[in-house]
């Protein structure tokens, strides 16, 4: 059976990379982040998702070795 950690890991890694890049691209756009009190929420969310995605993918590897 397909290990569910693979799609979860892949999806959040892709979304994480996407939002991190978007966060960097919009980093000087202060009007856009006025809503979120100047916090670049895309960068933070993207980074968080990337870490989560990579952890999931790493866990898949560890399981396989067992």
């Amino acid at each position, binding site marked *: *059976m*397909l290990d*569910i950690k693979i*799609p*979860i890991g*892949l*999806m*959040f890694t*892709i*979304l994480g990379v*996407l*939002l991190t890049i*978007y*966060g960097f691209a*919009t980093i000087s756009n202060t009007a*856009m*982040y006025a*809503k*979120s*009190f100047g*916090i670049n*929420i*895309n960068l933070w*969310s*993207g980074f*968080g*998702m990337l870490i*989560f995605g990579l952890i999931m993918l790493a866990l898949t590897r560890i399981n396989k070795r067992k």
Partner: protein
Amino acid sequence: MEIFQLEWIDYTVMIIYFAFILGIGWVLKRYMKDASAFLEAGRSMPAWVAGLAFISTNLGALEVMGMTGSGAKYGMLVTHFYWIGAIPAMVFLAMFMMPFYYGSKARSVPEYLKLRFDEKTRGLNAILFAIMTILASGISMYALALLMEKVLGWDFNVSLVMSAAIVLGYTYLGGLSSAIYNEVLQFFIIVIGLLPIVFLGLHEVGGWHGLQEGLAPIVTAKGYAADAYTSTWKYTGSATANPLGVEWYGIFGGLGFVLSFGYWCTNFLIVQRAMSAESTTAARNTPLIGAIPKMFIPFLIIVPGVVALVLMNNPTTGFTIPSMANGQPNYDLTIIMLLKHYLPAGVLGLGLTALLASFMSGMAGNVSAFNTVWTYDIYQSYIRPATNDKEADSKHYLKVGRLATIFGVLISIAAAYLAGLFGNIMDFLQTIFSMINAPLFAVIFLGMFWKRTTGHAAFIGLLTGFAVALLHHGLTVPAGATTLVKGGWITVLHIYPVEMAQTFWTAIYACASSTIVTVFVSFITKQQKNNSELTGLVYSLTPKLKEGNVIWYKRSSTLAIFVLALVTTLTILFW
């Protein structure tokens, strides 16, 4: 109503998500070789996967939107739905009921009723369940399409057909496994998609203490104590001191016991997730593992609602909730307005994806429960019974299960249009749901723990409970009700301060009458099943489960103690 202006990045996030859910279905397709794989996920799910799917099924969009709205309406008291409602019921299901559901080898809750009681009890439950799940799925679709039309400006018909097509796509391909995998994916996307709102909301009001201070003037103006909206049990001594309008014993008995146990322990949609687990221990651990994230969900969906209450009373924040026709704020839109208030392009797409995801998994959950009950409990029981050729049977039922999936989605679409024609149908169905579950819990509970309970008694008990619930609903009404759907269609004998109080007491009366009648009829009718037929189905006739070979921290009893300790801590912290 304002429309979100979505940008390419938001659409990209959505498209990636949809590509993954369809992709999962496509990859799982090659494992769908027989009916068991398709309809029962081959009983192969690890406990953590089944556990997350278990709570995810319930975390539909109507739940998310409703709970955030209730947070704005009633404050932290809504956590009762979790800490005294869901969690104890989930622990009970795991410790005392799962061994019989799973151990009996029943493939559905109606089938358990057939094994424990008789054919008519199963038939009654199966048919009601099949109708209800399809209608629920239709309502989910209707709400989704309506939301997309109003909020995103998409065409209603296109939204409806598109979402139905996606759900059909992955449930047709990968069956229950696909539904479960996608529920796990949905769980993570909901948590991650909504976290920014919790974070930014608490940031704006100045943290938990800022929230309490901000609430004080608003809440005292409503006539409650200053901390009534941030307490849970403190003001439940009298019904008028808390916004829910229910005393502690009403909450404890109605919500904590009857409604929650009825929902979490007997609803096949939920129990099916635990039945898909790989072993008896995994099946018991499913609700327990689910309970751990479940008890923190209030912070994700109720706390933002409470934050919204502060924001909407402070004009400088610029936060508003659109009004309904009667001038009251439309609290169901709270979460949408929070998304709009806080999220810039990018994370906005993520938040909306979380909401769309929860709508779709709600539909997929209903469809995957429907096709199992249809195939095993209706088709196999009444239309084409199993033959001696097991292999050919399994192929045949796989085909029927697949067709039922298509059929189920098509009737859901019809039900969605029906919901659009009759605005009250949603309220009506929610009322009916609460009437069916409470008596069912009484009957299954008696069946599991009292071997004298007979089939005739179960059948009559179910009908009585349902009739009493209807009668109670027909004789009482919540204050300010304008339609007969809310109750009082016979005559009004009692007026409840809020609708929730009426729902609680309807369930309490239904459960109590069902219990009394089932016990009474059991004494005057003859038990049709002998002890060997009841082994594995009734507590006193089933050998005790031994957990000695399971490592201590994976034992259900250890997990259950941990869950209960954790929920007690939360309750005390937010007393």
